[in-house]
């Protein structure tokens, strides 16, 4: 079962290490992890995607809550969330495949943000599955470098918010 944990933590040095250490210490998986400051500079938000059985999922939330640098933990399913990942990918191109690459980017809603005589830098912001799909499409072209952010997610807006 896949879950997304949105974890608000004190923005202090060493906190990322403590949270990541908790996952490795207790053999919990981390599928993806993204960290950034929130609107309050004293607070960071960690978005952690993890999977496990029901007991593991419950333990992750409880153990996170036990950490004294953790302010709040929200656990939710992918289905009730909006999730995004940012991809930057550098590919080699030549005359014969240039057109194809541009077409793929157009179809997939990716953008070419930089280029040279034989390289392009492609940017995409989408759900993790589509990001993966784009990378798959470029397998036949020569990929030079890939950087991904990890998933960011927030619960969908609903009436009770």
């Amino acid at each position, binding site marked *: 079962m896949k879950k997304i944990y949105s974890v608000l933590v*004190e923005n202090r040095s*060493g906190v990322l*290490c*403590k949270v990541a*250490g908790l996952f490795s*210490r207790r053999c919990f998986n981390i599928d993806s992890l993204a960290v950034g400051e929130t609107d309050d500079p004293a607070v960071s938000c960690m978005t952690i995607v993890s999977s496990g059985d029901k*007991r593991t999922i*419950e*333990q992750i939330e*409880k*153990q996170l*809550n*036990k*950490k*004294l*640098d*953790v*302010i709040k933990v929200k656990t939710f399913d992918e289905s009730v969330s909006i999730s995004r990942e940012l991809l930057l990918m550098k590919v080699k191109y030549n005359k014969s495949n240039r057109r194809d690459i541009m077409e793929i980017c157009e179809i997939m809603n990716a953008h070419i943000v930089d280029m040279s005589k034989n390289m392009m830098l492609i940017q995409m912001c989408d759900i993790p599955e589509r990001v993966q799909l784009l990378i798959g499409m470029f397998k036949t072209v020569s990929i030079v470098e890939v950087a991904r952010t990890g998933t960011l997610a927030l619960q969908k807006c609903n009436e009770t918010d």
Partner: protein
Amino acid sequence: MIGADAIVKCLEEEGVEYVFGYPGVAICPFYNSILDSSIKTILIRTEQNAAHAASGLARVSGKIGVCAVTSGPGATNVITGIATAFADSIPLVCITGQVNSELIGSDVFQEADITGAVESFVKYSYLVRNVQDIPRIIKEAFHIAGTGRKGPVLIDVPIDVQNAEIKKFSYPESISMRTYKPTVKGNMVQIKKVAAELEKAKRPLICVGGGVLLADGEKDLIRFAEKHQIPVVSTMMGIGVMPTRHPLYFGMVGNNGKPYANRAMNESDLLIMVGARVADRAVNQPDLITENKVLIHIDVDPAEIGKNVGPAIPLVGDAKHIFEDLLEQEIIGEHGKWLEVLDDYRTCMVPRRNPDPAYVDPAAFITLLSEKMQDNGIYVADVGQNQIWSCGYHIVKEGKFLTSGGMGTMGYSIPAAMGAKLADRSRQVIAVCGDGSFQMSMMELATICQHDIPVKIIVLKNNYLGMVREYQHYTYKDNYSVVDLSGSPDLEKLSSAYGIKFLRLETMERAEEMIDQFLENDESVLMECVINPMDLVK
């Protein structure tokens, strides 16, 4: 006033009486400042034992144990002691010296990343960057260590911070931490559910763990059990919640527990686990305790509930508050028959031993010793076969039973006994260890002499690492590997080297008279009991 003075002042404000430790350059400002204070310092002989001694003091006084060691090896040596306290939820504040702030990260002499190294064994840790933060950090550290699920907190203080001038010292009266608000009072809806289940139950049972002692909830629990005539069993850490000979007490559960206690667990239809982790040593098949019964799990740490077993009714809170509330509930129920059944089990299912008359029988010896001990005496068991015999045969009256239950750290008993004695000098304190565990902390005999801490020590001598030998007996068909303790010192000569009184007991014949001699004065005595090397706990 410099940072080091501020630390000492804060400890005074917290009512600290003793600091256990070992100095080194990086903690010297602190040890210089403490000279002007009424706080007494105890020089232990290796840092691990500073944490054990602080643990013994904490468990008897109910206060927070404090130790202070230097950077690098001093700090890394104390980790096992901290981990031992963490496993048993014992409140400690451990102060470590650190190299100059500007040098942190450059691998200079005696630098260790101690906050990083202890991360998984502490409730929280601090690296003090600014001297002005000292009062707040120490206030928070004591608060964190001593509330909720208790545990050790480490404060790492670079030497330049200890020497820096602090502008204005004021000890905070209160603290507010948005990330830490432990729940100690149980949810009333859940408490009512517990009461309702109790009314339905025909064979209820309470299993107590160390959490009951940590919450100071023994009295309320006993009142509750007596009021509703509910039988009680305990985990190893829960020994001492109830007097051993209380008619409602049915012994310790688990692999090394009493067969009738385990039978009571299996046959109960309602099981209340309180302040216990449901770890493997007490419950080796967690699934079984939810079969054919309703499980209620009470713990101050929500993460413990559902970690090893999923309860029907989770109840977060500490034992004291919850049993106070449960005592207010109207509960009608009668289980006289169930008690009769358990009484029968207790009489019939006595584990039989065949002691060898050529040696001291540890079981009979421990029972005799505990009968002769002062009623409020403190018995500290070490780890190994001695621990299992102690759990099985020590009779708790009004005293305390201390041991390293979660971590099973050998060498715990002597330093912990020292801390226990300093917590209350009026009480008799006896450390019981094997010859293996004794040699893990025998350097502390010097501390006992230097600081006049009259703890009494029993060494059950079999010239083996008995618990491992027993395991190799069963698992490897007597292929013994690295368990022979030949080369151990002559304990009589060793005692006389330290000027400690020595007694040797070779058979049970003179046991009574020797125990009387052992206990007669409030002085340190080392008594060697020669036991059969081939004896087994099972």
